[in-house]
């Protein structure tokens, strides 16, 4: 039988994983929500963030600088991609949009191999966040707590930004009706670039948070993008709060499945996701 402590520690692992998935999915769903583009390259950008964190940390030794550097660099990478490439395919069949961002993914992945080599890189947990708190017999590391809190703060920040600021209001206007908002003097293109910057900057944050948790190497982005797609589509594309809940649910479900059937945990996870998608293609929190 599974005892309570094992259950609790797996639950914490699940929340930790779920928070990382949320940060991974947040930018993707934000970008889709406003521009209607499902950015295949999102996870590749996130992994670039991890690599940049690594480089800045190794050369300066400062975590704060590394975090900020990753966020800004990824934001710029996203914005440049939008201005140079994605801008040209807005009116086209979604097929081409998907294929274009897929092409970008290949390029970004290979560029990473060129710059950082084919091996894995790793950054130790920040000094401040080493150690942990004991909850019963289970020790929860400070880093886990930190990531879960950052995830929740990101949710609050995004929610506030979109629903309570003037910029958020304008973004929603562009999202609802690009033509009408253009008539009212907003240039949707600027907002698309802005949203690519923001979404990719969040990916940079995700990349920076990811690298002390796992080693980063080639192929990681290919693996992450599948999870990201599943989170945002399951939640309902463009739904921020829904993505948060879904990401946590997937993280926790995965951890608990590992406890029950370590053999088939991922198989069952993907199967459940596929079944939910078949019944509700608009997602759990989406509306048609």
């Amino acid at each position, binding site marked *: 039988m599974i005892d309570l402590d094992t259950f609790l520690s797996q639950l914490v692992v699940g929340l930790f994983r779920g928070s990382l998935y949320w940060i991974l999915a947040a930018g993707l769903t934000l970008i889709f929500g406003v521009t209607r583009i499902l950015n295949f390259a999102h996870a590749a950008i996130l992994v670039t963030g991890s690599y940049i964190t690594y480089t800045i940390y190794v050369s300066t030794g400062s975590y704060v600088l590394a975090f900020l550097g990753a966020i800004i660099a990824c934001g710029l990478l996203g914005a440049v991609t939008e201005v140079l490439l994605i801008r040209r395919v807005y009116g086209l069949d979604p097929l081409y949009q998907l294929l274009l961002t897929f*092409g970008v993914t290949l390029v970004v992945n290979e560029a990473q191999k060129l710059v950082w080599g084919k091996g894995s890189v790793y950054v130790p947990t920040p000094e401040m966040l080493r150690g942990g708190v004991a909850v019963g017999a289970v020790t929860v590391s400070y880093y886990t707590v930190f990531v879960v809190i950052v995830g929740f703060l990101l949710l609050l920040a995004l929610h506030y930004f979109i629903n309570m600021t003037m910029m958020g209001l304008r973004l929603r206007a562009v999202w609802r009706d690009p033509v009408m908002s253009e008539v009212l003097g907003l240039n949707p293109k600027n907002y698309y670039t802005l949203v690519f910057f923001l979404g990719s900057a969040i990916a940079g944050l995700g990349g920076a948070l990811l690298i002390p948790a796992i080693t980063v190497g080639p192929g990681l982005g290919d693996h992450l993008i599948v999870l990201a797609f599943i989170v945002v589509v399951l939640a309902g594309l463009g739904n921020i709060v829904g993505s948060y809940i879904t990401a946590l649910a997937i993280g926790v479900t995965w951890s608990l499945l590992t406890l029950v059937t370590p053999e088939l945990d991922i198989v069952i996870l993907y199967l459940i996701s596929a079944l939910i998608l078949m019944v509700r293609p608009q997602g759990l929190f989406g509306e048609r």
Partner: protein
Amino acid sequence: MILVYVVLALIPLTGQRFYIYLGSLFMIYAIFALSYNVLFGYARLVSFGHGLFFAWGAYATALTTLNLYRDPLVGVLVGIVTALIPSLVVGFLTVRHTRIYFAILTLAFGMVFYSALVKLRWLTGGTDGLVGIPKRGVILDISSPQAYYYFILAFFIVSTLLLYAISRSSIGLLIRALGGNEERLPFLGYSVFQLRLVAFTISGVGSALAGSLYAILMGVVTPDISYWTFSAEPLIMCLVGGFEHFMGPLVGAFVIVVLTTIAARFYEVWMLVLGLMVIGIVLAFRGGFTGFLETTWNLARHMVVARGGASKS
């Protein structure tokens, strides 16, 4: 088409093992890409899960020849026939959806299959895969390069002729109509669901054939061939060759196989080139290589016609 067959039939006469291997690989990828295009080019459904069917064929062949009946021909036939099961099941479950939802659903099913291949060690050998798939069997012995080459060529000719016949048949036309205007089909009394399922099954079984031949050629199968990045290969081939034209995926498969094999020797950055190619095609040449040829041809003809008209007046 006949020209392609003749050239392919002549390759083993060079006696170069390298060309024979490359030719075999090309035929396998061409079958994969042509089958994929039934769904992608005709019905305009983007699947990110076709590695599932390729891997199904490969693993079915591997398991049959290793455990049940030691013969490559029987192995390939089992691969094709059993592929009807996943094609119909996954098709039945996914073709109700379109666009991004279809892409994500096929991706999810592909990942289910991939993780099952990795995790079910007792059956599939996990990440190590299955080794020692025989070329020499009870009925057929195709262990010499020429023999397995002609074995693959025979399947290549039969399957491409079949696919061509399908593309010209009324069913093929109806599937193309799906990509063109699917709202209109029900008014004409056709079921969009059934047509999509037919397209899905054809492309699934064709991909499985490619997978079966791949298992025989390589002698080894690993779960990589069901990972989603592998599912994207026929997509890239269709895109590079041009998915509007029947021969497009064939041209795409040729370009990719030749470039991967040759370019990979010189550049580490081959995938970078491929990515730039995909971006370039989406931005500038949406018809792919065959589309580009067609446009140039039409343009040239118009110019000739225009000049001819001018000289007469």
